[in-house]
């Protein structure tokens, strides 16, 4: 089945899968957004436990999606894995450490004799909630603004600054994406609280903070998108693979790929509708519109970064070292083999949906927590 596809089709197929995983990860960062809101939304210990427990039943999905995203990137575009992780050393370790401290915090937070105290684990969760989205967003910003690396004949990476990736925050366009992702994750976190917790006070406070977080999200997001459409981009010549700077490259991409543009617009409308409908009508379904919209928007942005002969990981240190889906991918054989594995993805999504539905068919309440044998 996949054997008949051309190499470029396989590379595009795998970019679509990796991008979809990235988009799902951004949606699932509602967990991180929610973690930054424990001290804002909760006024009592019971309320805080409700917030922690509702996210505590979902954090593994975000975590697993991140790990799978890494694994899929490694399998399909190993040169990106080697270049970015080996090069932007400090950025990736900062992201990873924030996820390491998250992984234990839900389980350990309320356990007797937890050595560091409940407050420490709550602070760990806050750090993960803050650093995770900002750094991931800033790192993805380098897909459009470039990074400081060069590659030799053997594809060994050399980084152009001693800051090993941290310099990305000095480019405001990268940082704007990081901040947009942070406020989006907070918006999604609030919508998730409203959807899954049976508590009137939490609902009202979440609704109030939804507006406060939507405004900065829109400012940073619109700045990022508008600046993106007017900036120079990194194109490559088909055949030779030579990297060139092209004015309005991402605007050109938007115009050249109308289906992707439509997906982007539907996604943005979905996010806005999820927020606005919740603010106006006070419903609980906003998370699904905003979540679905997030997936479509991020997916479209990542496609914009790599398709239509665009370098998805440009180097501003040595332009010709820039990575494209053609020069960074695995071999044809591996892509074909992996494509068969990708047929399991709908099945995986199916059982995740079924399990999610089984667990979320009733909102979490303080009564349920009191009876719960295993609570965070």
């Amino acid at each position, binding site marked *: 089945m996949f054997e008949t596809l051309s190499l470029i089709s396989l590379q595009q197929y795998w970019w679509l899968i990796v991008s979809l995983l990235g988009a799902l990860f951004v949606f699932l960062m509602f967990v991180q957004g929610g973690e930054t809101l424990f001290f804002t939304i909760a006024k009592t210990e019971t309320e805080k436990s409700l917030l922690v427990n509702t996210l505590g039943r979902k954090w593994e999905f975000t975590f697993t999606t991140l790990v799978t995203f890494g694994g*899929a990137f490694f399998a399909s575009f190993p040169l990106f894995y080697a270049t970015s992780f*080996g090069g932007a050393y400090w950025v990736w370790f900062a992201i990873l450490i924030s996820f390491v401290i998250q992984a234990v915090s839900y389980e350990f937070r309320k356990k007797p004799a937890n050595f560091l105290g409940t407050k420490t684990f709550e602070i760990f969760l806050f750090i993960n909630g803050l650093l995770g989205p900002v750094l991931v967003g800033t790192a993805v910003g380098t897909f459009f603004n470039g990074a400081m690396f060069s590659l030799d004949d053997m594809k060994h990476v050399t980084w152009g600054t001693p800051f090993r990736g941290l310099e990305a925050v000095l480019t405001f366009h990268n940082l704007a994406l990081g901040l947009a992702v942070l406020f989006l994750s907070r918006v999604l976190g609030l919508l998730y609280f409203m959807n899954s917790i049976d508590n009137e006070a939490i609902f009202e406070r979440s609704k109030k903070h939804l507006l406060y977080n939507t405004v900065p999200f829109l400012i940073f997001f619109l700045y990022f998108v508008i600046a993106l459409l007017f900036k120079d981009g990194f194109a490559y010549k088909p055949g030779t693979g030579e990297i060139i700077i092209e004015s309005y490259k991402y605007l050109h991409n938007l115009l050249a790929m109308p289906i992707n543009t439509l997906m982007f617009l539907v996604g943005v409308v979905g996010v806005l509708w999820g927020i606005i409908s919740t603010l106006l009508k006070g419903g609980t379904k906003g998370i699904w519109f905003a979540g679905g919209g997030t997936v479509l928007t991020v997916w479209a942005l990542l496609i914009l970064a790599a398709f239509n002969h665009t370098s998805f990981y440009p180097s501003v240190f040595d332009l010709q070292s820039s990575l494209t889906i053609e020069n960074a991918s695995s071999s044809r054989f591996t892509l074909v083999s992996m494509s068969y594995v990708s047929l399991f993805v709908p099945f995986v999504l199916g059982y995740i949906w079924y399990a999610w539905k089984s667990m979320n068919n009733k909102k979490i309440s303080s009564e349920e927590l009191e009876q719960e044998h295993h609570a965070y």
Partner: protein
Amino acid sequence: MLDGINVALVDWSRAQFALTAMYHWIFVPLTLGLGILVAIMETLYVKTGNPEWKRITRFWMTLFGINFAIGVATGIILEFEFGTNWSNYSWFVGDIFGAPLAIEGILAFFMESTFIAIMFFGWNKVSKSFHLTATWLTAIGANLSALWILVANAWMQKPVGMVFNPETARMEMTSFWEVLFSPMAVHKFLHTTSSGFVLAAIFVIGISAWFILKGRDIIFARKSIIVGAIFGFVAIIYTIFTGDSSARDIAHYQPMKFAAFEGLYNGSEGAGLVALGLISRNTSDPSNENLKDFTVKIEIPNILSYMAFLNWNAFVPGINDLIRGNEKFGVLAAADKISRGKIAIEKLKAFKEAKKSGPRALGAKADSLKTEIMNPDFQKNYFSYFGYGYIADVNTLVPSVALAFYSFHIMVVLGMYFIFFFLIALFYTLKGKIHKKKTFLRIAIWTIPLAYLASQAGWVLAEVGRQPWVIQDLMPTMAAVTKISVGAVQVTFWLFAIIFTTLLIAEIKIMMRQIKIGPNSEGGAK
């Protein structure tokens, strides 16, 4: 080709990976085994309807959850460290190594993370049978994730199903099934997971023994010991069988590692197995300080030959044979392998130069060089020694003999002890005498750290024993490392050391408190 790479960088990068892997491996075997044990206990609850089994299941499930969280935390670092600290390696083998990691995420981690939520929080939300299914799927998911990472690790010990492509300067997969079903991968998976089952069984028996010593929850403890001992006995027998197969794989594909962990300096026909031995500080071989004499050793004749090749009189090469060569038995000298490796590297350099120099006249030269490199004969006779081209001193081809020897023997001796441990635990419990056997109960508690020691020793043997290779014969560890300042790696090493140690202390304290609370009132948020 290795500009900017120095010994300190390689050592610190190795130390960081070893630190992360060893911490990770404290938690993983318990997850692998306890997941299955909890699923068995819950099956007994669903089958019998006896609420005592539910109480037992929930207690062990609580400990499973505490352990699982920290295993996940250390695991994510390991996955990404391949990129951050071993970027040259990541490119060189990403075409092959990345696939198992991706499959691990898609097929195993999602299964684990989806159903663990139901396992913990679904008792009152889903049916009994759905809950039991979720518990089994969590345990299976954990073991499936081990399958894929062990396939990747086995490939590093015995690369199969690939060809070197000079165009991309990396190994490329030619057969997925060869990678998945290589004997090294199959045996490694079975041996490693079953050793996790053994550790978890010992954990359950040891903690149950503590309850009996305290005169608490006797029925709970006895039932737990019966399940743990039966499961553990089956698992240890299987571990020994698969360990034997793994040893044979090593004898065939990693003869230097085999010779090192057996302390076999000079090969012979009908080689004897050193059952027990002590290595002295002295060496009778001034050319290699690593080859220390034995102060004392108990050797069983011919067993090593049989173990390695199923032939009592087979020739087993020793370290000196592998370094100096042994024409009689067809063992190639290390110097010959180095020359062949250098030819492979030079050929690759020439190809890269030809590609760079000009499009037309030299293009034909590049094509012809590529054809030459891709030729199966060249791949077999030269490229399969590619990594040797980086080796400057033949003595560096010998891993630390003392570390390999002791880790192997600790693992094997403890494995033998565990057989008797499980049998005695089962015998006393079934006879109803376990509560009277105070000494055995104390031994059972102290067997828990021994299980961890055996488990760690296995990995020390696997990873230290294959040095200097990160990919056997193809890529030495020094060629795999990311070019980064030593200071950066030192900072992250100490950062991880502090974080992991702090979390380990927290985990142990929480676990011990939860055990003291016992099966009647275990739980969290109250």
